[in-house]
């Protein structure tokens, strides 16, 4: 009996907590479809005006193209590098493994402003022109730890005897990796790509300092927050972005779980 009452109290708290987590996101569509130009209650009327203004905005389209270019490139780069690190740390023992892995995972906790500022100082010092490429370099760095976290779970639950069987049957090292290992960790790779893509798409600090004059979606949003008249369009943009992120993360989660099921892992874990 007491288990039930305790469970229920905790459950009520957990639901309230989720509500707190989602409060701002739930407000987004409300203001995106509100015809009033001021972001406040009471609401005025229903409109899709902000969405049509959003599609018509040329700077926004440029920011979108830039953001997509950056997100695709940096997620591919981060996942490729992540495959190396995850494979090395889960399959081999070698001197300095803990230290090197710790250093690679460092950007996960290092404040982004430190990463952005130090990289900016070096780039400016070397006379490198700031561009989308410099943002991609920074984004790949901060996506890499998340990619490794996902890929490590995929690699660590691999059955080593499957590879050995492939060797015994005459496959080369690369052949065994391509035919056995890669298909088994593929869900992890897809999940890593999607999560890195989402992180890069939403990243502001590095894009703000390293993009030069090129807008990305977050830096465009930041530049518009100062103008009250631009806010409703930003709310519409935010609604689209949130839906897009949730879809991408859900697909990523689906692949991660399918990968775990395929190699007989537990359904929880993943990023942990």
């Amino acid at each position, binding site marked *: 009996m007491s288990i039930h009452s305790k469970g229920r109290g905790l*459950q009520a708290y957990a639901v309230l907590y989720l509500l707190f987590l989602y409060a701002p996101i739930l407000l987004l569509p409300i203001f995106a479809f509100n015809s009033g130009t001021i972001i406040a209650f009471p609401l005025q009327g229903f409109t899709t005006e902000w969405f049509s203004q959003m599609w018509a905005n040329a700077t926004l389209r440029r920011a979108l193209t830039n953001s997509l270019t950056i997100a695709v490139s940096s997620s591919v780069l981060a996942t490729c590098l992540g495959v190396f690190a995850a494979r090395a740390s889960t399959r081999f023992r070698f001197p300095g493994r803990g230290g*090197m892995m710790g250093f690679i995972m460092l950007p996960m906790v290092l404040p982004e402003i430190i990463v952005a500022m130090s990289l900016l*100082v070096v780039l400016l010092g070397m006379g490198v022109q700031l561009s989308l490429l410099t943002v991609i370099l920074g984004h790949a760095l901060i996506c890499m730890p998340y990619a490794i976290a996902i890929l490590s779970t995929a690699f660590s639950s691999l059955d080593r005897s499957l590879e050995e069987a492939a060797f015994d049957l005459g496959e080369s090292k690369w052949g065994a990796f391509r035919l056995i290992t890669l298909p088994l960790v593929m869900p992890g790779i897809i999940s890593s790509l999607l999560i890195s893509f989402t992180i890069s798409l939403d990243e502001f600090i590095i894009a703000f300092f390293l993009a030069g004059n090129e807008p990305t979606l977050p830096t465009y949003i930041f530049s518009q927050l100062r103008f009250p008249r631009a806010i409703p369009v930003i709310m519409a943009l935010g609604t689209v*972005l*949130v839906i897009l*992120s949730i879809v991408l993360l859900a697909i990523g989660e689906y692949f991660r779980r399918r990968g775990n099921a395929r190699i007989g892992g537990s359904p929880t874990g993943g990023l942990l």
Partner: protein
Amino acid sequence: MAKFDAEARAGLSLIAPPFLYALVILAAPLLTILAYSFLTDGYLEIIRDFTWTNYAQVMSDPIVRVVMTRSLIVAMVVTAVTVLLAFPVAYYVSFVVRPERKSLWLFLITIPFWTSYLIRVFLWKVILGYNGVVNSSLTGLGIIDEPLTFILYNVNSIVITLAHAYAPFAILPIFVALEKIDRSLLEAGRDLGESRAMTFWRVTLPLAMPGVLAAVLIVFIPTIGDYVTPEVIGGGKIPMIANMIQVQMLALDNRPLGSALAVTAMLIVAVISLIFLFLNRRFLKVRQ
């Protein structure tokens, strides 16, 4: 022995690409900042003379002290609030939720963390603002006559916004630690006559402490370096250390002083984290 060498070589050659990438993109810039912090700022260029002046300036400047103290207090309050609020949720998901529903809960908890950070911060400004959701609802309901001022564009609203932004970061490590607890230990505690509360206090909590410590650090370190929230919520009037570093580096173009600020901030955070871990070292031993 030869086998070990081959394995070590294979491992090292595999880890080389990501490690070199991190060296070039992260370690080299951090070392450059460290070097810059000992140089002198000249007009339009940096003079290559070794000096401690930047650090002396950072230590003696009252504004730096105010901003640094503010950042530390905000980060500590945010960390305390986040971890305390997160623990029951992690506990609920680990101990009460059915195993097949756990990953759904974790997924729901992490989604907001990955969606439009900037817009979420801005929406907190809208929620807490003068004509915001909280104030207009409370005035509309006749509960208050004047808008609440303690949540208006000040340190309190920065704390609320950051506590919201870093919430999932606190839940995940605590959840992992709770999941690892052998459930039979709790039954043993009950069988030996401990009450539910005492079992929690003497068995569950100490075993969960490594997760709590990880949560504290993983929230504290990024929070103290947050740039967006003070900028958006405080409108640049309540800077934290990240904003100050940015102003020195770019707006004032004093890179040596900016670098010294960044290095000092990182040192302070590192020292606080180490002291914190040292004070809690007995909890870390529990796991072994």
